């Protein structure tokens, strides 16, 4: 039974759960599609309908939908503001979900439908942005986390605007701005702006909370934000003005910001009171190291004369190791919170009420997260030596790991 009245720090958890379920199914489907187009991935031909469809399923269906769902839960608790309209939340979920399914279908079967399906997706995301703007403006004391989240939402807004322009280019043959400039900026703001800024912002809430860390300084976070934002502006500027040196400078700023972020997270975790950390949380922390390494590789690749394929791989692993693995690890902590609140909040304090750790199975988590790591390493090796069979095997393993992860999350709801 749901609690009778929702306070300002609570939300109707059915909505985040709907988002998360859709996201998990998209995650599994995206990996299935990548498996089907293995040869093109290995050979570095990313501009195929299957890969476009898989990429949008992964980034919109999985990443963005899970981020939206998490925000419906986290914004009230982290910013102490209620969600502006839950009815709009449900409407926004259905519009965005339908849009994403149609968009990915358009890539596969009917390219002329891109403008319409992209438009529906854009409406869904705009409604989300409106919802968040209306909710966040009520926050009384803004902090650095607000800065990260608002900047990430702004990047999402710009990303979908650019995506719509790209869809008009492809679907209707219109060309307002150079296609390549649009595509590069769309990817940069979507990946580095929307996802990375959001993950960093919420990490400043989740990491101290999950580790029970106290007595740490937040000074570095302002530097992280400033440098990362400057890196995004410089990198985007380099695309529009065709300045390779500005691109290197932009990527270096992003690397510097991410290095400070990784260092800051290390400082916070060292101040923890909880000595034994949960496996999902450790997986997220590990992926920060992966993200740092990929930022370093991006700076190095930018200095090479022909690095197009290298950037494709860096981007792929950035999405998998930094974005996907961090989200997956956090999700394995957030979902038990949601489910416990849903099922047990009204019997808290009564004998026999399970603890959060009783809802999760750490042994299965270790197996699943290890499979993710082994599969990612296998994919990296396959791409490095151009081995189709190894890629197929590793991608199949990754697909199996996503299916296992889906089951692992769904199992929480059986306890």
């Amino acid at each position, binding site marked *: 039974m749901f*609690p009778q009245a929702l*306070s300002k*720090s*609570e939300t109707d958890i059915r909505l985040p759960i709907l988002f998360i379920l859709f996201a998990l199914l998209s995650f599994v489907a995206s990996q299935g599609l990548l498996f089907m187009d293995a040869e093109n991935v290995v050979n570095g031909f990313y501009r195929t309908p299957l890969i476009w469809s898989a990429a949008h399923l992964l980034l919109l269906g999985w990443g963005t939908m899970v981020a939206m769902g998490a925000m419906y*839960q*986290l914004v009230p*608790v*982290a*910013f*102490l503001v209620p969600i502006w309209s839950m009815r709009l939340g449900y409407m926004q979920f259905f519009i965005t979900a339908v849009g994403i399914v149609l968009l990915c279908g358009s890539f596969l079967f009917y390219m002329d439908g891109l403008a319409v399906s992209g438009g529906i997706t854009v409406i869904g995301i705009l409604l989300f942005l409106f919802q968040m703007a209306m909710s966040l403006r009520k926050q009384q004391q803004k902090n650095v986390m607000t800065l990260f989240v608002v900047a990430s939402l702004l990047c999402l807004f710009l990303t979908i605007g650019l995506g719509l322009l790209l869809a008009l280019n492809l679907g209707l043959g219109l060309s307002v701005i150079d296609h390549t400039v649009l595509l590069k900026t769309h990817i940069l703001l979507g990946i580095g702006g929307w996802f990375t800024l959001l993950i960093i912002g919420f990490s400043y*809430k989740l990491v*101290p*909370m999950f580790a*029970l860390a*106290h*007595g740490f300084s937040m000074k570095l976070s302002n530097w992280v934000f400033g440098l990362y934002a400057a890196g995004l502006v410089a990198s985007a500027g380099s695309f529009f003005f065709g300045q390779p040196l500005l691109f290197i400078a932009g990527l270096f700023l992003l690397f510097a910001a991410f290095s400070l972020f990784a260092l800051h997270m290390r400082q916070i975790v060292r101040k923890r*009171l*909880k*000595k*034994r950390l949960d496996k999902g949380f450790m997986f997220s922390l590990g992926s920060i190291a992966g993200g740092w390494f990929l930022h370093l590789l991006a700076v190095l690749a930018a200095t090479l004369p022909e690095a197009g394929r290298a950037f494709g791989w860096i981007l792929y692993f950035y999405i998998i190791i930094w974005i996907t693995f961090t989200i997956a690890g956090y999700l394995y902590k957030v979902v038990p*919170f949601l489910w*416990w*609140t849903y099922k*047990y*909040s*009204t*019997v*808290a*304090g*009564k*004998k026999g*009420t*399970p*603890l*959060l*750790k009783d809802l999760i199975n750490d042994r299965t988590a270790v197996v699943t997260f290890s499979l993710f790591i082994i599969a990612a390493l296998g994919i990296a090796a396959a791409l490095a030596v151009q081995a189709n069979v190894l890629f197929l095997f590793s991608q199949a393993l990754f697909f199996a790991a996503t299916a296992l992860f889906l089951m692992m999350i769904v199992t929480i709801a059986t306890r």
Partner: protein
Amino acid sequence: MELKDQIVEALKEVYDPELGINVVDLGLIYDVDVDAEQNVHVTMTLTTPGCPLHDSIVFGMKDRVQEVPAVAAVDVDVVWEPAWTPEKMSKDAMEQLGF
């Protein structure tokens, strides 16, 4: 046993579901006040502002205290000053966290 002591004992049965430590040993309870009409006012904090389990813990505490015989009404006030610090935990709680 005095009513105030009974209430503290009852609160020891309310656990932080994330940490598995009761709210008393965790040092979350700042004050328990019982007036002449047996109305109980609990002043408490949480380990972090914006804890997702805020309402569940407060609800569980109210519910448990209400079960103590002779208690008329329960009111729980969550405060952030003074902020919770690890020093407020009991020795048992520290041990459970791995210290």
